[in-house]
């Protein structure tokens, strides 16, 4: 169903209280909408959020498509972002990405059929001294060896 539950609406009101204009809360609102929708924005949520903050659905769509973190298609339960930007690229960022592509059978931009994993190539995540690294949902995994990655995948599959 499209729409925040009553308990989340409290959070929405708190967000609105932070800004002089409702629509300024749009980015945090979209993050919140993704949080209650397994990390993505199913259809109808753009219009719902637009209504909530007194703006147009086209404005909201413009914003959703501008920012990397907003997804209009389902992402995996583990959304993996591998940094291959300049400093990480010097420190085996690509090897990490290739390894994950092979192990998961996914290319960047794809989600596994069981909905467990999705893969993305990331730009600098402000942790370049800890390369190679990946961010899974909110958590950074740093100074990774390929064995650690394999272990992590195994754990994630088990927990399923």
């Amino acid at each position, binding site marked *: 169903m499209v729409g925040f539950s009553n308990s989340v609406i409290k959070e929405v009101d708190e967000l609105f209280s*932070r800004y*002089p*204009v409702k*629509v*300024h*809360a*749009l*980015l*945090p609102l*979209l*993050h919140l909408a993704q949080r209650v929708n397994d990390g993505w924005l199913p259809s109808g949520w753009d219009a719902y959020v637009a209504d909530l*903050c007194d*703006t147009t659905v086209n*404005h909201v769509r*413009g*914003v959703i498509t*501008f*920012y*990397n*973190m*907003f997804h209009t298609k389902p992402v995996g339960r583990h959304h993996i*972002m591998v940094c*291959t*930007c*300049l*400093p990480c*690229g*010097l*420190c085996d960022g690509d090897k990490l990405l290739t390894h994950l592509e092979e192990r998961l059978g996914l290319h960047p931009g794809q989600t596994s059929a069981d909905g467990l994993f999705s893969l993305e190539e*990331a*730009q*600098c*995540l*402000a*942790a*370049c*001294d*800890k*390369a190679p690294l990946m*961010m899974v949902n*909110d*958590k*950074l995994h740093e100074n990774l060896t390929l064995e650690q990655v394999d272990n992590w995948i195994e754990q994630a599959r088990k927990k399923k």
Partner: protein
Amino acid sequence: MVEEKQILTKNMRDSKYSGDLKAYKNAGGFNALDTVIRKMKPEQVLELVKASDLRGRGGAGFPTGVKWSFMPKDTGKPSYLICNADESEPGTFKDHLIMMRDPHLFLEGMIIGCYTIDCNTGYIYIRGESQTAIAIMEKAIGELYKDKLLGQNVMGSKYSLDLYVHPGAGAYICGEETALLDSLEGKRGQPRIKPPFPAVSGYNSCPTSVNNVETLACLPYIINEGPEAWKAMGTPNNSGTHMVCISGHVEKPGVYEVEMGVSLLEMINDLAGGVRNGKKLKAVIPGGASANILKADEADVPYEFDALMKAGTMMGSAAVIVFDEDTDMVEVASRTIRFFNHESCGQCTPCREGTFWLKNMIRDFLDNAGDEAKMQRVERVSANLIGTTICPFGDATGGPMGTFIGKFPEDFRKHFA
């Protein structure tokens, strides 16, 4: 021998330091704010910051006191201080260290800044990927409200201040201050045409100052010890210490706090352990992906705003990226242009189209299909990006891309058809 300083990093270098309010206060925290709130008028704080010659640590190195003095008073509108915690310039990771390890140092600085420009509502714009930093900052702000260091009547004075964290959503360009303001207003993060400058018409069309995390974190020391103590460190016009991020092919990548003006080369060798695996240095980018690259024999420069500018590059966000002798500059150019093409906001034709064509041309070299004409074309398109766009992103792309070819033509020639 370059040595580390512990002005900003004093607390966080102690592995037992928890970073909560109690620990920060035990370490002498909030004395500066106490002095400011009880004994100083905003104008006096402004004079002190001006006298310190503090320059912004976000990239442009603009004097902080001067920036604040541009803000008109008595406009009938509220003033805003927005902290730029977007930290997305490739190679930069110091602001995150401050937020994660010593959040109250930065918050004390931010409150002092807000007081100085008579701001009652401030926002901290943190990149959306950094949920950990966002949670730490939210928690720290909560502690301050409980302790009456934020909210109505800060420290029992007449001054009131609310601070909020605002999450970005994954767009490098939102680090540019006017794009950040649009993003904060719930829009696509596209840089604004200036003037008007944010000081006059910024957030919600009100007088606004955008300041970097580290810039604000310098304020408690400057208030406690005075501008002369701050200026006693560093070099003339490049005062104080700062936090340098060293990454790439070094033994010990990390953040190092040094005085302004130490040798870039010595810093790499003495602090970061030199080029890793005993290799030789080929080149170094001194200020993030937006800064022009220096060849190994150009790297012995004073690490400060002015000397680097003179050397044809910039200190930017103090992100030092080190390349060893085996590095292929075509590879480096390719990563750099993929980044800029991905992050261009698309408003200006030279940037939107230029980054796209540059990416394709560099790919030709990677595919060993380069030639002399393509090299010249890359240089021409790069030059066309400089000075022709709404925001400095154009220069930040054109400069480095032109310099890779200009300084390392032999690397590109190895990729001729």
